């Protein structure tokens, strides 16, 4: 049984630190294999990258036209 979308959306735009990080950490604990987090943020979350790498997740970051960022987070050994 697959979830309707294989992504969980975390819209952290406009949240002050460390709420974005708090939200992502909470969702990470709930991720099922093959699922990803789609994180929206108004800044590039550099401090998060090191933590994700440490916990075995990889990320892809893209800047949107409005200057905000979209970060896709998956487990390192998952298929893209």
């Amino acid at each position, binding site marked *: 049984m697959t979830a309707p979308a294989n992504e969980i959306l975390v819209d952290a735009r*406009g*949240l*002050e*630190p*460390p*709420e974005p990080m708090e939200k992502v950490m909470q969702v*990470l604990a709930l991720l099922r294999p093959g699922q990803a987090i789609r994180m929206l943020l108004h800044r590039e979350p*550099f401090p998060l*990258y090191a*933590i994700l790498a440490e916990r075995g997740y990889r990320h892809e970051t893209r800047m949107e036209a409005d200057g905000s960022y979209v970060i896709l987070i998956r487990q390192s050994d998952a298929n893209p």
Partner: protein
Amino acid sequence: MGQPAGLSFEQAPAFSLPLRFFLTAPLFLLAAGGLLVWTPEALASRWTPQALALTHALTLGFLAMSMLGALMQMLPVVAGASLPALRLVSWFSHVPLAAGTVALMTGFLTARPAAFAIAIVLLGSGFAVFFAAATLSLARAVSSVTVGGMRLALASLGVTVLLGLALALLRAGGWTPPAVEAAMAAHVAFGLLGWVLLLVIGVAYQVVPMFQITPPYPPRLSRWLAAALFALLLFHASTPMLPGVVTPIVDAGLTSGILLFALATLRLQWRRRRKLPDVTLDYWRLGMASLIACVFVWLVVQFRPAWADSDAYPLLLGVLFIGGFAVSVVNGMLYKIVPFLAWFHLQAQLQARAGSIPTMKDMIAERLTRWQFRLHFVACVLLIAATRWPRLAVAAGGVLALSALLLWINLLSSVRRFARHGGHFT
């Protein structure tokens, strides 16, 4: 993709290393309040022994103590380069700074050369250790406007400490050579406008947009302001050797730079995205308003030069800059740094049960931080008034002491929550 700033759970310093600085600082603020209650004549002039002890309780015991702890924590995050030998640096800068400040205050209050001698050794070695470690770290750091501000602030700290050590040596020996006045003026200028102001500016470039969800500072301002202020400070220190016409130009330059920063910050904060009440924001606003008040007072005195010679003028500037600006901003930042660290380390240590730890906002009761802000605000008002009506000094000291005590209690409460949820400190 960017470079990984060192906020990984493995690379971050143990909680206790920066924490000791943050828990010691309010005690010196408390001591300053107590000193004022005990000897209210301290505010008769800035040169009384009690005023000097009070000043250094604030600048060394509270401001430098907090700023050293914050740098220790922020350098890895902001500059991508952590301090070397972190545990050693922490021990050998925290203890000498605390003990050295007590010795220096004792020296001022008792005029005993031995106290000054001890202060010189302790403060000299403590700052030397930290300075060496921070220089190594900043030399390797990825350049940015914040790192640039930190580098200039650290250079200013070096000048301030060297001059301070020399001045203490003179005081211990009882000599007062003629150059002493110029040395004192430079010590104060590099200490307040260099170390304190430049560090706040450098850090503001990061934390104001980050915590208060504002747009970034205008790039032209952030690129040039710190360097321009530092250059002006160098000119300011050389004024005895330069033609007299230079002095007002340099002073006007410094004042304009300060005003620019304060107004730019207030403007950014006015345009912030999330308009929720926040104690740290209010502390910053109080700080910026105090900077503007300093500029205003300075301007008034330019038109009434006779007031420049009064005892109240430098005291008023000092109260506004140190109490209204520096202590406010640091106080506000402590309410972000300590809860954040408590949350961060709990998160790192209790990975499996991530959902069960308090959020950063839950670490300290917001109501109590709001009360402490009110106490601090009243203390600032009373201190300002006390420069004009010295009878208010006791009340000012009392409220300052209460404010400091509540700050300490609030910070401790987050540490207790951390421990109660199973966090460990090393």
